[in-house]
């Protein structure tokens, strides 16, 4: 089996993490939020990292944020990256206050700058599942 046929890397959501992927397939960014103190969190936690509450729920986020930083991946370390380099790595501070590690698409690498406004976009994987990425804000 060649690397490209090996799909063991595809995300396999559990009941805990399914809401994130279900939202993506609906074109939304959904993250966990504390019902008690309002702090958003990512990745998955059972308790609020801020106040310790267990009243933590999945909620749709705005899908907008600013670019905290970026880098240009020039080497393939993952089956998904073959023939796709370079890939823009991005850390996005979404307006809800969470920093997401993601990719930036629909932009030339030279045009990427810290602080630029970005919005969520979506990418399909070979099995049809959808994951969120980001692109420059369109409005």
């Amino acid at each position, binding site marked *: 089996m060649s690397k490209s046929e090996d799909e063991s*890397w595809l995300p396999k959501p559990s009941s805990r993490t399914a809401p994130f992927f279900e939202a993506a397939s609906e074109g939304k960014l959904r993250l966990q939020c504390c019902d008690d103190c309002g702090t958003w969190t990512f990745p998955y936690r059972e308790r609020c990292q801020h106040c310790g509450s267990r009243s933590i729920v999945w909620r749709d986020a705005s899908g907008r944020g600013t670019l905290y930083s970026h*880098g240009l991946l020039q080497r393939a370390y993952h089956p998904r990256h073959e023939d796709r380099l370079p890939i823009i790595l991005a850390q996005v501070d979404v307006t809800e206050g969470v920093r997401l590690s993601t990719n930036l698409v629909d932009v030339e690498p030279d045009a990427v700058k810290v602080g630029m406004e970005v919005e969520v976009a979506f990418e399909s994987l070979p099995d049809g599942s959808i994951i969120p990425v980001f692109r420059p804000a369109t409005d």
Partner: protein
Amino acid sequence: MNHPMNGAAAVSGLGMTEMGRVYRSTIDLASEAVYLAIDDAGIDKSELDGLLINTGITRGLDLHLHVALGLQELNLLTFMQGYGSSAGQMIQYAAMAVANGLAKNVACVFADAPLVDGQRTGASYSGGRRFGGDALSSLHGLYGFTGAIPMFAMAAQRHMDLFGTTRDQLGQIAVSQRAWAGLNERATKREPITLSEYHDSPWVVEPFHVLDCCLVSNGAICVIVTSAEQARDGQQPPVYIRGFAQGHRHDTGQTVPDSAIRGPGSRSASRALAMADASLGEITQCQLYDCYTYTVLVTLEDYGFCEKGEGGAFVENGRLGPGGALPTNTGGGELSSYYMWGMTPISEAVIQGRGQAGERQSSNDLIICSGNGGMLNYHSTVVLSPETAS
């Protein structure tokens, strides 16, 4: 008022194995380093009553190292992990133990063997990863965040976007350290490099070239810590432990907005200097954890050698290199000599503190060493000197 730990303990022994593509087990390397350190200190194995153990990415060591060493009379024994801050931490716990009578001679050992015959250099750090697992965790690799390089590269990029730091300036750090490595026969990479060769080095994650990233090395280093009193009667010139501290934090993106450009080193260094009753201006050389060129730059800023954002200009014109105003990573550092995590800066500081650095010997009155783990999450500082507290 003098801090009771200022100069209370000293490094009395140093053991270093061969480094690089040395295909031996981590435990064999660790054992050899301990025996070398005992010989270097001029003590008998039976006098070794403390053992602190730390290992790297392959986790090839555990508490049982004492069995391989046949140590039956230990008064202090633990396995620790603080990533790149571990070596500095071991020195600190050892210093407190010997100063307070818990043990007399404490061996602090690091060993790792990430290089495997027939595998590429970075395989243990970036390869062999499970791409499956928890679905949200699996996204990390899918987006391209494998190993530590992407996060440090992006930290450097933020520094560049915010402060105008240039690729030439990062390159100056690599060039200066390679010049030092040329003077160190233990260094793996000794051929001098030019700024132009730095720029021609392959990209990994822009803005990082291969030459922005540390080596991967197999090997082991052991440092023996004893009381200042006992060290004075030792076989080697004592290197006094004058000050130390740690600083640790996490980053959720919510509480530490500048985490890529401000590390916990600032807090750690100022407390270590306070213990040493010294000011930054008295530091005559730096041995800084340099997993990447950027780590040196951000640590110089965090320690206060220059203002935040001015690290790029600070490292220009060979300031850190041979003949420069602030000799830094005088053995070549992790970029060019050997990557023994936090033991790389500590071992070079001990060699310099003893005055045994030969051609690369620099003014050693007061040496500051840093250790960094995670993405500027875990930090230790140790201040060393051939002079005890006045």
